[in-house]
């Protein structure tokens, strides 16, 4: 298939080949009939990186079926991909976004139309086989399920799944009907409600595929299946089985429904409607024939498509997609010609430096690690290798891989090792004197084009830049702790930082698997600045007599992975205290450094690392890891008690999150980030803001600016931190939105 004539659908019938065999060429697929009479349809959807199910493809498939109906019937049809690694990688998100705006009856009609088309495959006299080599997801898997048989390949890129729930949706073209009829309802619920993919061998074991073979055997295997199906017409028996009800004992059905509901409730916290809808749909369809079950699916699908959670999750998906394409700078030379570093170095072997070095190894970089303290280096290396060789599946480091990676990690106590580095990430202690000296040293050693970055959360980039002769090549690269888990990275632009430097930093962070956001130099940058009011307010409420457990419970119920006081314990109260000083100095009009934090620090309660902070923490797995410590905390808070204030749960959420929205409006007003999308991305990736709410500003939009102003009114006596900002008031007046 070196040349791909893009035939017109209406005149797609073009004779080809010299042996008299026929070919039909459409925009997204090409069908070749071999002399034996087996038609192979090869899918190649242009205009996308992977095959996605587009409207054009559906029309092409319909046209092909029309063609096959006109002439001599083929012996069978093989559906395969012309794109290595992608059978169908899922839905066309643009098309999905159109669907989000459609009315439920129209959505149901679209589902019905797709199913009718696929059903044509299953009503021909000849059998069809899908050859699945690569990703086969969502609607693509539904197409494969519409075939009579499936071959998967053992290639590592082969993955079958229904990821719809991750976007708040479910399969809409019969996936919830066919899968339980093929592999049993239990496995179908697991696969569709969790949204995880399975590999080729697993698909064959489950019965989702008829066999799994090496990729080079796949077409031959498909031909064999067509022969075997034809030999005894067993594709007809298969079709009858798939069209019927599901054979399951009522006791098994009830057990599956009850246990799956419990598992799903535990996983979603009740915030995500798609997984329970999948379960209900599958259970409701078991005793029905497939056509009736499909109608239930369509209705449930339409309900999900029109739900706010789906809209929010699709938005978050789009934010991530946009971030992956974002160069971080305005279109121009810098954006176009980024040469990413190949010889990165990290200076400072503390927790952050070690984490950054490990991230490099994990992403395939050879990396140099410098620390003047030989012992610190020696202590750091085993942890770095373990983290870099960590196998998520086995939950332990792979020793062979750790050994191989050891050769990729160079360590030294002298900055002279940096002479060939093209990117140096300084990650020494958060002391400006140390950093200034180090940065000056680094610049004397590295070549003239090397980019120099500093990992800092509290030092202004402008001040550190003074150490350098060429501040244009310097920027902040703020990683979060723990580096292995936190995907967000703030690329901080000093006043002199050039576009080229920013573009390199952004591109490099992406190569580390991170999600970089460009932030203008300012105290707290973006993330800590947004975190500050959230943390601060929790301590204020504690001082007013609201129990820590209640504050955190409300935050978790809102969807946060941790409550603010739990987060304090995780960050470490000493760390939070020092970061807080910088912020209080900069934003003292609305935030003061809370006296409670140093009181706890003085009492040795630093958080998880010291065994206790706002909670008691135990490392004994037999016990609960976190326990109420209100009795211990009370006397430490007592000297700083504020007037008692009764705060209902709903108001706790307002107090935690509305000041963050206010701070976000100031951030936008000051141009710290480009737009609200970056705010939402940062909140989700760095602070765990719940994706089902679409992001902080999407949540604010769901409330509406006017409603936020109204909710702030009863909090006005708390001071300037609850004052509506001009930007908020303007939006409230105009009815405008925080997000575009």
């Amino acid at each position, binding site marked *: 298939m070196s040349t791909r004539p893009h035939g017109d659908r209406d005149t797609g019938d073009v004779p080809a080949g010299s042996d008299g065999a026929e070919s039909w060429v459409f925009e997204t697929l090409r069908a070749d009939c071999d002399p034996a009479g087996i038609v192979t349809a090869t899918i190649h959807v242009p205009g996308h990186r992977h095959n996605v199910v587009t409207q054009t493809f559906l029309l092409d498939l319909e046209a092909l079926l029309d063609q096959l109906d006109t002439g001599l019937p083929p012996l069978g049809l093989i559906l395969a991909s012309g794109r290595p690694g992608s059978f169908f990688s899922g839905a066309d998100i643009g098309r999905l976004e159109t669907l989000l705006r459609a009315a439920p009856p129209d959505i149901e009609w679209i589902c019905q139309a797709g199913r009718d088309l696929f059903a044509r495959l299953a009503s021909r006299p000849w059998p069809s086989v899908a050859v699945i080599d690569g990703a086969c997801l969502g609607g693509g898997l539904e197409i494969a399920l519409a075939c009579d048989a499936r071959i998967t390949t053992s290639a590592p890129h082969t993955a079958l799944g229904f990821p719809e729930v991750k976007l708040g949706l479910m399969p809409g073209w019969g996936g919830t009907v066919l899968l339980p009829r093929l592999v049993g309802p239990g496995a179908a619920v697991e696969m569709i409600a969790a949204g995880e993919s399975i590999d080729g061998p*697993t698909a064959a074991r489950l*019965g989702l595929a008829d066999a799994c073979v090496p990729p080079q055997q796949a077409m031959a295997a498909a031909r064999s299946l067509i022969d075997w199906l034809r030999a005894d017409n067993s594709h007809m028996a298969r079709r009858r089985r798939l069209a019927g009800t599901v054979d399951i*004992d009522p*006791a*098994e059905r*009830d*057990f599956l429904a009850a*246990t799956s509901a*419990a*598992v799903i409730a535990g996983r979603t916290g009740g915030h995500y409607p798609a997984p329970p809808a999948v379960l209900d749909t599958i259970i409701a369809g078991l005793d029905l024939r497939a056509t009736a079950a499909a109608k239930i699916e369509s209705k449930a699908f339409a309900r999900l498509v029109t739900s706010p959670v789906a809209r929010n999750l699709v938005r978050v998906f789009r934010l991530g997609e946009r971030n992956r394409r974002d160069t971080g700078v305005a279109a121009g030379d810098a954006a176009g010609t980024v040469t990413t570093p190949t010889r990165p170095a990290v200076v400072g072997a503390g927790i952050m430096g070690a984490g950054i070095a490990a991230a490099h190894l994990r992403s395939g970089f050879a990396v140099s690690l410098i620390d003047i303290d030989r012992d610190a280096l020696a202590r750091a290396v085993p942890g770095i290798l373990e983290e870099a060789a960590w196998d998520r599946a086995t939950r332990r480091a792979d020793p062979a891989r750790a050994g191989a990676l050891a050769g990729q990690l160079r360590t030294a106590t002298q900055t002279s090792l940096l002479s060939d580095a093209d990117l140096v990430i300084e990650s020494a202690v958060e002391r400006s004197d140390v950093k200034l000296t180090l940065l000056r040293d680094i610049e004397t050693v590295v070549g003239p084009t090397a980019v120099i970055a500093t990992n800092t959360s509290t030092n202004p980039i402008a001040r550190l830049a003074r150490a350098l002769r060429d501040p244009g090549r310097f920027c902040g690269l703020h990683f979060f702790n723990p580096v292995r888990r936190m995907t967000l990275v703030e690329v901080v632009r000093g006043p002199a930082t050039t576009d080229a430097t920013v573009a390199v930093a952004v591109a490099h962070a992406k190569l580390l698997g991170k999600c970089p956001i460009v932030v203008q130099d300012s105290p707290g940058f973006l993330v800590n600045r947004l975190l500050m009011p959230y943390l601060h307010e929790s301590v204020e409420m504690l001082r007013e007599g609201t129990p820590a457990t209640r504050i955190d419970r409300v935050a978790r119920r809102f969807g946060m992975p941790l409550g603010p006081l739990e987060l304090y314990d995780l960050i470490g109260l000493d760390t939070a205290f020092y970061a807080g000083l910088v912020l209080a100095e900069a934003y003292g009009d609305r935030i003061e450094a809370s006296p409670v934090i140093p009181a706890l620090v003085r009492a040795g309660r630093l958080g998880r690392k010291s065994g206790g902070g706002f909670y008691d923490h135990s490392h004994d797995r037999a016990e609960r890891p976190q326990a109420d410590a209100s009795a211990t905390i009370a006397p430490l808070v007592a000297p700083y008690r504020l007037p008692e204030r009764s705060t209902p749960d709903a108001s706790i959420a307002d107090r935690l999150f509305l000041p963050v929205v206010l701070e976000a409006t100031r951030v936008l007003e000051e141009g710290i980030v480009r737009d609200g999308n970056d705010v939402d991305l940062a909140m989700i990736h760095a602070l765990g803001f719940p994706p089902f709410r679409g992001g902080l500003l999407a949540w604010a939009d769901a409330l509406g600016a006017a409603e936020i102003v109204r909710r702030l009114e009863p909090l006005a006596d708390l001071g300037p931190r609850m004052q509506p900002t001009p930007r908020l008031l303007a939006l409230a007046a105009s009815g405008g939105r925080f997000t575009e």
Partner: protein
Amino acid sequence: MPPTDTVATASDSTPVIVGCRRTAIGRAHPQRGMFRHVRGDELAAAAIAAAVEASGVDRQSIEDVILGCTQQRGEQGGNVARAAALMAGLPLSAAGTTVNRLCGSGLEALARAAHAVRAGAERVVVVGGVEHMHHLPMDSAIDFHPRVLSRSSRGALSMGLTAEHLAASAGIERQRQEAWALESHRRAAAAATAGLFDGEIVPVQAHDEAGALIRATRDQSIRADTSAAAMARLEPVFLPGLGTITAATSAPVSDGAAALVVMARGEALRQGLQPLARIVATAVVGVAPAAMGTGPVPATRKLLDRAGVGIGDIDLFEINEAFAAQVIHNVDALGLDPARVNVHGGSLAIGHPLGASGARIATTLVHSLARGGGRLGVAAMCVGLGQGIAVLLERESS
């Protein structure tokens, strides 16, 4: 009631039990389990040797050894019945085979011997069961094909989840489960203190928590000091925050073995042995894997139907206590008087070494009947992946 056979002749092939012994049941715990340094095959050999010795059977007449065991690998691998028979010093002419009906394996061994004897195929068979759940954990090295579950669900592989579902669907509250478990401990502790288990337990070497060498004569999991208040404080194990089943209302994982000597009544007569009980009937059933806890109900009904015996005629029931919710369900569904069920406590207190438990409850039942606890007794068990097994015993009057 069918007539009881009383007249024995040399050709009488009625299967009878002439002796039975078990080890004390240990906790399967890497630091505290009293059998942590003792192997499963050693426990099996000790039970076999003791049962043969107690029965007085002519060792040369033993034709086969059948042991139940669910984890047939490692120290329980390679046909542990044959290995244990050799270790126990049985004649080389005694054959051996190991069977697996999961939790019902011990009763399965007894049932197979009964069938063989009844058919005139064998005359003397030693049966029993063994499981060392610390050395060979119950779910290790098992890899079910996903298609096994195409008619069920993965949750059905968790016995705890099936029991939770049973409790929820049958409305068996946590309090009632804990009351049953408490009573199980009370009865077992009372029986142990009164020495009622002394006749069935063969002492074997073991280690206390400090590592000191002891003779294990008492079941390790029985807690005389447990209380309703202590049980009420426990977190649900299988559905944290939601469930009703805790460590107190699930059988403890255990190490132990038991053995019984089964023979044709005519052969017992010839050897001058006094049978303790005869095996009247056996039954197995399949149920939905997700409803595995219900297995004893249809199994018992089928058993009694087969024997032509009414449920009211049964004096004693030994229903294995995998979970309090399960045994309560079984008792409710069969309409049993709890006073006749597990009179000396059940597996919630004594422990549940899977493959051994069937032989353990049969041993306890034989001793209870022999002590004059009644004439007819039923031993029944639920079995993972959805089965039930039941055996009807009748005391042989002395």
